[in-house]
C-alpha cells in the first residue's frame, strides 16, 4: 500500500495504516529516492479517525519542507477537523471512497504498486495479465467529413505521422498524435491529447502533456523506454524483451498508469 501517491493536483499522503511516527521512516526513504521530483509540490494528508500526535506531524512537515513540499490540506474524521484547525491546514472532509483500502482495479489487474509519481517503476508490473471484463470506453464523438474550406478542428487537431520515427526525431503536438509506423528508441512523442502508434512504441511517449490524466496511449507493441500520461510516469523494465507483443492501451486508473490488452469498445 503506497503511502505517497502523485496526483494531478499534487501529492497524497495516506497515513492511516499505522501511527504517523511509525510511517515517517518510509516516507523519508521514498522522498530520498527521487529528491528533485517533488520540489514545489503541495501535499494532502489523509488520516483515519485518530489525529496524529503533534510532535510526529511537525516532524513530517519539517521533512517535507526539506524537499520544498508544502502542506495543503488534511482529510479524515471529526477529530481530524479539529486537528486541521490547530495545524492551520485546510480541512477537506472525510477520506474519499476507496481511500485507505487497496484500490480495486477492474478487469483483473495484477499488482499495481505505488505510482510514486516520478519514481522509477516497472511497466511489466503494470501490465494486466488477463482481462475479465472489457474496458468500457465512453462512446467517441462521431467523425464527420470536413466541409470544403473548413479548417481542421482547432481545439485539438490530430497529427498523422506516416512512417517510422527514428532516434532523435520528435513530434510535439497540441492535440493527439497518430503514427503509422514505429517509434524507435530515442524518438519522442509529446501530445496534450492521446497517442496512437500503429507499430512498435519503443521511444518516449507523453500523452496528456498538459496534465490531462484521462489521455491514453495505444500501440501495437507497447514497449516504451518511458511512458508518461499527464503527471504520471512509468519506465520500462530493464533488459526484458517481450516475445509476443499484442496491442495494448495504457491509461491512468486510480492514480496509476495501467496497461491492458486492447479490446475494441463495443
Amino acid at each position, binding site marked *: 500500500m503506497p503511502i505517497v501517491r502523485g496526483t494531478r493536483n499534487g501529492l497524497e499522503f495516506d497515513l492511516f495504516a499505522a501511527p504517523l511516527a511509525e510511517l515517517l521512516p518510509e516516507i523519508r526513504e521514498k522522498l530520498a529516492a527521487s529528491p528533485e521530483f517533488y520540489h514545489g509540490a503541495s501535499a494532502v494528508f489523509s488520516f483515519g479517525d485518530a489525529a496524529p500526535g503533534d510532535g510526529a506531524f511537525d516532524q513530517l512537515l519539517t521533512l517535507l519542507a526539506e524537499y520544498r513540499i508544502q502542506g495543503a490540506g488534511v482529510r479524515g474524521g471529526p477529530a481530524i477537523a479539529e486537528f486541521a484547525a490547530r495545524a492551520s491546514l485546510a480541512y477537506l472532509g472525510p477520506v474519499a471512497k476507496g481511500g485507505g483500502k487497496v484500490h480495486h482495479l477492474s478487469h483483473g489487474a495484477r499488482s499495481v504498486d505505488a505510482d510514486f509519481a516520478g519514481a522509477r517503476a516497472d511497466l511489466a508490473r503494470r501490465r494486466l495479465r488477463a482481462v475479465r471484463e472489457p474496458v468500457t470506453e465512453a462512446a467517441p464523438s462521431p467523425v464527420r467529413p470536413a466541409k470544403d474550406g473548413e479548417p481542421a478542428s482547432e481545439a485539438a487537431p490530430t497529427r498523422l505521422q506516416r512512417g*517510422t*520515427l*527514428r*532516434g*532523435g*526525431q520528435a513530434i510535439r503536438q497540441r492535440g493527439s498524435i497518430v503514427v503509422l509506423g*514505429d517509434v*524507435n*528508441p*530515442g524518438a519522442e512523442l509529446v501530445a496534450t491529447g492521446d497517442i496512437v502508434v500503429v507499430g*512498435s512504441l*519503443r521511444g518516449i511517449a507523453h500523452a496528456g502533456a498538459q496534465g490531462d490524466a484521462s489521455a491514453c496511449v495505444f500501440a501495437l507493441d507497447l514497449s516504451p523506454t518511458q511512458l508518461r500520461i499527464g503527471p504520471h510516469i512509468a519506465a520500462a523494465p530493464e533488459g526484458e524483451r517481450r516475445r509476443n507483443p499484442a496491442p495494448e492501451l495504457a491509461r491512468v486508473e486510480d492514480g496509476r498508469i495501467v496497461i491492458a490488452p486492447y479490446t475494441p469498445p463495443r
Partner: protein
Amino acid sequence: MADQHAAAAVQPEHMEPAQTQAEAPRTTGTAIVITSGKGGVGKTTSTANIGAALAARGRSVCLVDADVGLRNLDVVLGLENRVQHHFLDVIEQKCALEDALVQDKRVPSMVLLPAAQTREKDDVRTEDMAALIEDLRKRYDYVLIDSPAGIEMGFKNAVVGAQRAIVVTTPEVSAVRDADRVVGLLPKGIEAQLIVNRLRPQLVRRGKMLSVAQVDEILRLPLLGVIPDEPEVVIATNRGEPLSLKEGSTTGEAYRRAVARLEGEPVEIEDYSAEPGGLLSRLAAWIGGRR
C-alpha cells in the same frame, strides 16, 4: 523545381536520335555514402572492400574519403605513400581533379580521392562538395563516399551528393541507436541499405549478441550484407589489402555477396543463426534460446 523536372521529362522526345548517338554521354554514375553515426563500426573497411569488389566486377569506382582531418581510407587501401593532393585542393582549384586521384595498385578501375589531413571538416562548403560529387558521377560508375563518424558538418558534406546510402552497424545496441539516428537524418530521396558488420554467430546463438533480426526490428532497412567478425579483417586492414580481392576469405566473400546485392542480383542473405553442429548442439542452442 517542378519546371525543371517537366523539362527533363520532355527533353528526350525533342532530341534527335542521331544526336544522342553522336554525343554518347555516359550514363551518370551512382554516388553512395557509407555512414554509421557511431565511429569504429567498420565504415572505412566496408568502403574499401565494397569499392574493390565493384572494381573487380569491372565497374569504374571512385572512393572519396570525406573524413577531413582524420583520413584513413588511403591507409586501409595501402595507398598512403601515393597521396599527393586531396579533395580540398580540388575544390579550392589548387590542382586538377585528375592530379588528386590516386589509382589503386591492384584494381586499376578504382581510384581514391583522399581527404585533407591537415584541414578541418568545417573548411568544406556543402555546395562545393555537392558539385565535386556531381562531377565525379559523370566519370565513374560508382562514387563511394566514406563518411566521418558523427552527425555534424562532416556527415552533412558526405551525404550531400549521394543518391544511396549504405548504413554500417555492428550488432550492438549503441551502434544500432546511432545508425537509426543517422537514417533519420538522411535527406529525403536517399535510398538506404544496411550492412551488419562484425557479427559473431556463436554469440548470437547463445543469445549474447543482437541477431540480424533484432537489428532489423529497429532499423527496418533492406539488408545488403552480413559480415562475420574474423581476425583476418584486422590483419588485412593493417596491411592495406581489401579482403574482397582475396580468394578464400570468408569476409571477402561476404563483401562480394553484398556487392552483388548492391547491383541488384538476388543473392540470398547468409544465415548465421543456423547451428553447424549435430542434433545435440542444436538442442543446446534451442534450450539456450528459450532461457
